[in-house]
């Protein structure tokens, strides 16, 4: 039998039972659609988070004070150490040839006031290099001037939200504001960053690092951000940074150096695992649909006993019969998978419409693999009925009626 004939015959067999076929296709499509939608959600969440991290900067190395030897723990994200990171430490890191830019960061919170308005907000001390290292963009004015890190000056750059809250109806640039008991002149407003991982730049005031240290009466840095020349330089920089700090800290290795891509990789792994878990749970429904395919095919084999007997009597081989029934199962599951893909795509469109800010999209490999899994399920569960049909004894099968 030609494969074209095979397809035609299987198609006709399906057509004679439209309701039954529709129900199988429905079951299969529910499974495929849910796998598609859930994979799309998981994968988009992963993309979103990874993208957020990458927007922090490229070839970014972060130096944190303190180190824990406990295995498996996270680095000390905050907390104190007896020997702080200082501005001199930051300056010394320029000895590494791999480093393109260094931005020391100190952080704290303080009340900020303009006229009668006051709010408590986070204040970050840094240098001009932060603009480059963290890939910030300005909405108005300019960023902190290029000056020595240890030079105090009474200028500040404010986040978008702060600008809207404190200078609602006026131009913020050029105005003065008060941070605790010191006055600073606003020289720039940051462009809106939106909900970004890490520090919320929209509700932040950036001042020169020496001014922040004076404000908080502390000489320690919260962390040092470095930008390496290239990705390869980034890994070299990690070792060099550690050596330089060790030399300055009397031989003690008391900082944690992390690269941005290690953070990204961790999140990438976690969210990929989550996506696979969720898709796997949804795929259980494909197995249930497979059981249904098998069940219905078995029923139709027993119903079509006479037909099979006749075919065998006319000389159809076991192999041909087996292919015929398998083809029927495959057609049914393929139809289910295609319908499911369409429903899934519709679900994704609805999600896109509901959450325009969160880019939901289904990668092509996921769409194809859902189709492949559905088809494989149909074939796998079609084997048993097909074998049963092929093995029927022609005489007994014909004699049944």
């Amino acid at each position: 039998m030609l494969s074209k004939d095979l397809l035609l015959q299987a198609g006709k067999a399906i057509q004679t039972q439209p309701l039954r076929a529709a129900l199988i296709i429905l079951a299969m499509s529910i499974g495929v659609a849910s796998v598609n939608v859930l994979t799309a959600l998981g994968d988009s969440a992963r993309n979103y988070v990874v993208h957020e991290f990458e927007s922090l900067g490229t070839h970014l190395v972060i130096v944190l004070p303190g180190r824990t030897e406990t295995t498996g723990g996270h680095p000390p994200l905050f907390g104190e150490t007896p020997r702080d990171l200082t501005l001199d430490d930051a300056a010394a890191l320029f000895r590494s040839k791999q480093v393109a830019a260094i931005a020391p960061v100190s952080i704290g919170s303080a009340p900020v006031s303009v006229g009668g308005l006051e709010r408590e907000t986070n204040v970050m001390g840094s240098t001009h290099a932060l603009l480059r290292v963290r890939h910030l963009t300005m909405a108005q004015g300019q960023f902190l001037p290029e000056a020595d890190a240890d030079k105090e000056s009474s200028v500040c750059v404010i986040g978008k939200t702060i600008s809207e809250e404190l200078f609602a109806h006026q131009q913020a640039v050029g105005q003065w504001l008060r941070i605790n008991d010191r006055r600073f002149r606003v020289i720039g407003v940051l462009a809106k960053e939106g909900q970004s991982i890490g520090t919320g730049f929209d509700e932040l005031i950036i001042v020169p690092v020496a001014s922040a240290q004076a404000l908080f009466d502390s000489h320690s840095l919260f962390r040092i951000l470095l930008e390496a020349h290239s990705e390869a330089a980034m890994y070299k920089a990690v070792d060099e940074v550690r050596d330089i700090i060790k030399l300055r800290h009397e031989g003690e290795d008391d900082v944690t150096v992390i690269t941005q891509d290690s953070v990204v990789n961790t999140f990438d792994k976690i969210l990929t695992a989550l996506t696979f878990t969720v898709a796997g749970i949804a795929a259980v429904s494909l197995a249930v649909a497979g059981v249904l395919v098998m069940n219905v095919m078995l029923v139709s084999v027993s119903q079509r006993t006479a037909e099979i007997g006749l075919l065998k009597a006319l000389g159809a081989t076991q192999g041909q019969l087996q292919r015929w029934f398998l083809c029927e199962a495959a057609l049914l599951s393929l139809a289910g998978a295609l319908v499911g893909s369409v429903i899934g795509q519709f679900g994704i469109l609805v999600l896109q419409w509901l959450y325009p800010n969160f880019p939901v999209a289904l990668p092509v490999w996921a769409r194809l693999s859902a189709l492949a899994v559905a088809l494989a399920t149909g074939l796998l569960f079609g084997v048993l009925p097909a074998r049963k049909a092929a093995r029927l004894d022609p005489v007994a099968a014909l004699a049944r009626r």
Partner: protein
Amino acid sequence: MNWLDLAKLALSSITSHKQRSLLTALGLIIGIAAVVILTSIGRGIHRFVLAEFTQFGTHLIAVYPGKTTTFGLSGATISTVRPLSAADAASLENLDHVLAAMPMIQGNARIEAGNKQRRANVFGVGAALPLVWQLKVDSGRFLPNDGLDNPRAFAVLGSKMRAELFGNASPLGQRIRIGSDRFRVIGVMQAKGQMLGFDLDDTVFIASGKAMEMFDRQSLMEIDLLYSSETSAESVEQAIKRRLIARHGAEDFTIITQNQMLEKMDSVLSVLTLAVAALGSISLLVGSVGILTIMTIAVSERVSEIGLLRAIGAERGVVFRLFLGEALLLSLAGGAGGVMLGIALVQLAAAFVPALPVQLAWSYIVAAFAISLGIGVAAGVAPAIKAARLNPLEALRAE
């Protein structure tokens, strides 16, 4: 026809197609078992996380410096122009219903004992720590209540720290160096294990005053209060707020009660369980389509049987009930099988993978079972109506 006969007849038609009935039920069994297993894992994680949070006791309130206006971490934990001082902690301790107020600073330093050294967590705390965090002293004693101004250089070791630095020897009375200062070990804490990623055993506890000196800080990171169970968290929170505003002149601090935290966690984790239950229900839905399909096939297959039944006087209602009963019985079997399989797998998981927290979520199991019955009814109605509507003459002639 009475109900017993009806059930018998339905049962006999199910058992006459053993393979088909088994496969139909299998669809439901997989779906229900998935729901049971997933919700058990969800509930287990729920219980695990809440237990982690309440192991420090439930009558806790934490006060942080800085009024957090931004979502997320307040910079005030690192530095602030409006610090929380040790004197604030001492003042809060005098409030009514407050049993203890414990100042807290956390840092990281090198610890040396003899020729061994280790970098680890250093907690600067008050004498009330064993009471507030419900940690027990294993040997020696905890830090004495030395007052604010001149705390003595005593240190208490976590159990892992003791093992790393002193092995099996007794550390009591030994001198250790933390950062550049020397301390005398006066006690060892019992092992407590990991707390959401924080290893409290790999830790040294020293007086908060000493830690502020060592880390050169003016502000505490946190004040933890234990209040008496006779009063409500809200009234203590109000009292703290009044006292600190009186001391600082403005509300420049943040109060978080443990109840607030637990409620938030609780709702987040309940949503998690609900979400996995919803995921598992997808297979349940597919299983129900299976029942619908098989019942539709059964009706078309048994047209002559229905005709005969009607010819010998069975009413439409009886035929309807017969097919509905069959669907119900199938889903009942599938539901019960699924619940049993699910519970068995959960027990197996609990026995062989003790690290995975599982707890049977009975409310979800009952709901899943009820849903399986509902599916039976829903999937049975359309084929049953079709069966009941068949014209007896036509039906008999069909063969």
